[in-house]
């Protein structure tokens, strides 16, 4: 706390804008490595387009696998960002101030990544635009009854709105940078980006209003997007997919994984840029508590799935869930349970949830667990549905792994650029929570 009191407005400016100094060798090497991985991912994708989807590990009847898993995973990641920035904003949760910019950036980049996979997994990616309702000479439109089209709109909207939200939130801070940097090229860039922000009262007036509306839109949007994603599965009739609990289950899962990812990202940044003053233990604890909550919800969903399968007396459902726990993919299933339901229980202990290292490790576990949750839902359900005659196993191929690695590289590329180009913490909002300088205070 006393550290925080040492903060002054100018120190805030200084410390945060300092992050944008010339990139170090470490940063460059990291960046280059990242690009290399990305290039490999791109190669894998092009190879797949050229030869055909067969180079991926799909096999009858498992027609969706790692690609869609990644899609759901990244969309999930994308959620906590908006949650922290929008929902917590509406709830005036103070612990969000220091981390919301990073998580918003994460949101935007995660959506950018997620958006790739529906195209990557197409059999004929070159005609992906047929999914858009555009006027054409064939007089053909799209099928608005298809959950995939709901995806197109939901994800599209989500990307647009979260980017706006992200950008608008940054305008004042960019102005601050503009007023600080001297060297010409950066000066010009930031000048343009800041749209001539002056911090005058009328600007602030409209700004706060607008910001409130964005938040108000983003909140239901976030819920809707992941509900829609969950409907990709819930709307079908595949045992293990066709379930009413999916939307809340998925939303909770999304927030769960998203928070974990935030921690995974924030911890190292905090360390590297010495932001202990801004990002405090208290902030982490706040997130840790939310993780406990969401973890419990997810665990509850796991239990309920089993219960419903058993209680409904639906042989297909029951067969499916017994298969998950005991069948060919049982390992993955238990990895999921361990990572998502068991590990987070540690956070009940204050010692653990106030220990940065522990948090970091736990967050990694959760990321893995949540990836496998999606994998299990998609692959296991498909390989063991109604018709025993059609059952078959799925084995992943190097192409899919390559593309997956590429997607992570893609995400981190944006992130690396972000922390070097844009203010990773919100300057103006941190000032809001600082005590305003008054003459009385000075006098005393």
């Amino acid at each position, binding site marked *: 706390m006393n550290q925080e009191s040492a903060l002054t407005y100018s120190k805030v400016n200084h410390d945060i804008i300092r992050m944008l100094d010339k990139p170090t060798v470490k940063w460059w090497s990291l960046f280059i490595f990242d690009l290399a991985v990305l290039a490999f991912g791109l190669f894998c994708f092009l190879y797949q387009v050229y030869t055909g989807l067969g180079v991926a590990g799909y096999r009858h009847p498992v027609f969706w696998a790692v690609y869609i898993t990644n899609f759901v995973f990244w969309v999930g990641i994308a959620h906590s960002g908006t949650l922290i920035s929008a929902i917590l904003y509406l709830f005036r949760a103070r612990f969000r101030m220091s981390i919301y910019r990073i998580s918003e950036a994460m949101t935007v980049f995660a959506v950018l990544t997620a958006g790739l996979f529906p195209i990557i997994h197409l059999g004929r990616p070159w005609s992906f635009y047929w999914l858009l309702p555009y006027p054409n000479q064939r007089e053909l439109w799209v099928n608005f009854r298809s959950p*995939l089209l709901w995806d197109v709109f939901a994800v599209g909207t989500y990307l647009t709105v979260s980017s706006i939200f992200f950008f608008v939130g940054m305008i004042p801070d960019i102005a601050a940078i503009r007023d600080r940097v001297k060297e010409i090229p950066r000066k010009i860039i930031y000048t343009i980006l800041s749209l001539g922000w002056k911090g005058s009262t009328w600007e602030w007036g409209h700004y706060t209003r607008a910001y409130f509306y964005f938040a108000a839109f983003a909140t239901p949007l976030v819920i809707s997007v992941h509900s829609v994603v969950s409907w990709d599965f819930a709307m079908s009739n595949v045992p293990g997919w066709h379930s009413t609990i999916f939307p809340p289950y998925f939303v909770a899962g999304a927030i769960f994984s998203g928070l974990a990812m935030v921690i995974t990202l924030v911890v190292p940044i905090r360390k590297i840029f010495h932001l202990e003053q801004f990002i405090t233990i208290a902030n982490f604890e706040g997130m840790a508590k939310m993780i406990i909550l969401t973890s419990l919800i997810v665990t509850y969903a796991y239990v309920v799935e089993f219960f419903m399968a058993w209680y409904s007396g639906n042989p297909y459902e029951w067969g499916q869930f017994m298969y998950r726990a005991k069948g060919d993919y049982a390992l993955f299933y238990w990895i999921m349970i361990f990572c998502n339901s068991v590990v987070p229980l540690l956070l009940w202990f204050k010692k653990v949830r106030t220990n940065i290292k522990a948090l970091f490790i736990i967050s990694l576990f959760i990321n893995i667990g949540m990836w496998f949750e999606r994998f299990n839902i998609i692959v296991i359900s498909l390989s063991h549905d109604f018709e025993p005659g059609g059952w078959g196993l799925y084995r992943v191929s190097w192409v899919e792994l390559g593309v997956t690695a590429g997607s992570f590289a893609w995400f981190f590329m944006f992130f690396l650029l972000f922390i070097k180009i844009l203010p990773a913490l919100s300057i103006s909002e941190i000032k809001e929570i600082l005590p305003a300088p008054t003459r009385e205070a000075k006098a005393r």
Partner: protein
Amino acid sequence: MSEIKKGGSTKPVLSKGEGLITGGIKRRDFLKILGVVGGTAAITGGCSPEPVEKIIPYVIPPDTIIPGIPKWYASTCMECPAGCGILVKNREGRAIKIEGNPLSPINSGGTCARGQAALQGLYNPDRIGGPHTRNSSGRLEPTAWDEAESILVEKIKEIRSKGNGNKIVFLTNNISGSLNRLIDDWVNALGGRHIVYETFSHEPLKEANRISFGINKIPTYHIEETKYLLSFGADMLETWLSPVQYARKFSEMHGYKNKSMGKFVQVEPRLSLTGVSADEWIAIRPGTEAFLALGIANAILSEGAASVTSGEADKLNRLVKDYKPDVVSLITEVPTETITRIAKEFVESRPSLALGGGAANTSSKSTETLVAINILNYIAGNVGDTVNFGDTLTLSNANSFREIASLVDSMSKSEVELLLIYNVNPSFTLPKTLRFDEALKKVPFVVSFSSFMDETTEQANLVLPDHTTLEKWGDYTHQDSVYGVIQPIMDPVFNTKSIGDVILSISKKIEGLESQFSSNTFYDYLRDSWRGIQTRLAPDKDFEAFWTDKVERGGIYREIAPIQVRLSQEVSTVSFSEPKFEGEGAIYFMAYPSYRYYDGRGANKPWLQELPDAITTAVWDTWVEINPETARKIGVREGDFLSIESPYGNITTQAYIYKGIRPDTIAVPIGLGHKSYGRYAQNRGVNPIEILPVLTDEASGGFAWLSTKVNVSKTGKREQLVKTQDSTSQEGRGIAQAITLKELESGVHEQHELGEKFDMYPPQKYIKHRWGMSIDLSKCIGCGACVTACYAENNIPVVGKGQVAKRREMSWIRIERFYHEDNGFDIRFIPMLCQHCGNAPCEPVCPVYATYHNHEGLNAMIYNRCVGTRYCSNNCTYKVRRFNWFTYNWPEPLNWQLNPDVSVRTKGVMEKCTFCVQRIRFGEDRARDEERNVRDGEIIPACAQACPTKVIVFGDLKDGESTVSHLAKDERGYRVLQEVNTQPAITYLKKVTWDKA
């Protein structure tokens, strides 16, 4: 898309030698074939840039061909000795589909998978493109026809000049009819011999008939009339005598109609595909069928139930008196009560019929076994009733294995100077121990007329490739009542020449033969011999009219009534004993003929390779079937490579754990393990014949297939056994349902609620038709004809072993098999294809309307709109949709077979059964042109058409009078997984089973 466009044969111009051994096809003919660019469709995105296409007109338009209009020609199938009648579809001068000829009494419309695949023989990329001769360096090199012929002429002259005409041998398969006569006369004229070799020639049947009735022939059996069928290992639904014919007759006998059905009991150590259709499987000890038959006879006679004269009765009693059921039970390991029960059923439910002599179960005592079976038939009064000696098989003329053996012997003794080989592949089908290859090397000059580079042809000095059946004139007789005509469907694809023409043309050059063989072409010769037939059968008719009529109908079909025969004296001389087995091994070794490859001649046809074996669902390879008990003993799991060791060598192949085989027996299918014979056949699987001893059925001299005991050991190597269905159980989900006769009679079985009334949406509106289908499981024998027919009709690509291992086979219809062990072991088949659901889960999830429900109830799939999200398939309850993981190709000239009316799909699109929408479209168009409604049964999808047992009925559910709409309301009717409420257009009729005694 470009490569598939080629594959799609929009313009497959085949220059000399391209992708072929040589010759290729005469360009002019080819253009004639091509006619107008039309060809098979290849689908592209909505964004196809236009290719610059050439339109090539006819030079002289063939009067028979109108581009775009298919023509059908009747002919006869020669894929096995059964000689089914076929109709072949010709589009733009190309044969593109084979269907059974409804007029032919043999198959009456049906075909088997092998028959369907004949097209891939015609268009096989590994066919020999032209005549070859062995050059100085000892390699076969292409040559011209007249050269090749003159070489042969010189050879013959040389031999005759030495007066060695008797050292000329013509070795052919069972080619009855004119060609047979020609070859007979020709070889005789040269002073040589004509030897007819069939791998499965069933000598014991003949011999047994001679002994018991004095008739040295193979009769026909009227299975359709029997009420009780008792088969001692006769695989009449697979390869035995005339599988398609007997499959049809069997379904007539065993199919459930007006509250009754016949009973079928199969006696064999290994539950064969035929046995699967049986109501009862008796796993008898290998080689002891004779005793069981005698035991049953004994029981019948002692009951005094036999319908024989007293004299015969005493005679028979003397014969069977020692074989009391209890005694027999000890030998055969069949419970006594079973024996007595069967005896009872056999005489009580008449007419009954006992069959025997399946190749796989032919032991060294087969003749005796069959005599015993004859006795059984005789005392049950079946002979002259369901056993028809009036109408016998030409297969009876085949030489016995013993004679073949002696030929090989004389070859090795250099007593053969010129060996002409036609349509047989002895170096593959004869056991290694017979040393045929060595003997062949002793023959100075070998001529092969084979169209394919098989093991024997490879060793020939001269290769004069014959046309395939679909390119030439000929005739064939399977049984006395049928004369089948063979007519060319299209111009030869390669530079081949009909064997008949070759013989005639070389005869011209050999003095002494010109006069006898004066006809210019084999076509003339054929007509002459048919003049003979006409004067015999229809002397009053004018020949031309007669001839055209027969050619159009595909042949002459007559009725020949059974003749009455009495038991001969010789029967009493027969003595019964257990057969001989070679090898010290503990396990009986069974090599059984494959219904996909017959004796191996089918192995070069990708469709057959990719057709899953009905019982194991394995493809593209050989396997060994082993009982779980035995497997446990030697610690074997599925996919383990087992080494099978007989005194004559060993083979190594993958294990398949199969409950349908006795623990003391293992079985390996015949047909694979070729060393050559084209890219699809060679170096694939193993050939079990290699390790068989040269052991004959003593009495008849037929080859004893079941004659070895082997040692089985693990090699330690293990691989995934590539098959198309992993699970063997239907998890009680009622996919393939069955119902017992008693339940049906009593009517106490739950009537199935059919979807609509539980639906939240208003029922679908159908404008004119609602196409639907019914599938009768009590008739399905799992032969896979429908699957292959679908491949042929719908341009379904063959993906190869590697891809099938990933379950990426493209078959639109698959035969699922489920094992049942509740009471006794039995297997159920169910053909699974797109159900064209009224409430299809696949439709609403497609974002681009690539699949939707059309106004005739078809679940349409528009390939060129598909972007490949594959959501539809995820959501498909029946998992019948197939995805194009790659763009698949048809090597030239296989692509000539592609159906122009069906798009060839390219990578990245979904595909599935369309109920043969192209046929529906044509049917409706025809109806509209004739200003009438579509008649019931007018439109038949490929699967339904091919089915030899008429399992599948297709029609309009909206028309209340149609057969299918009646069947949809049948008491046995149910929809697969109907609780999902997809409201399928396909009604399955439950399999009917006898209540287990």
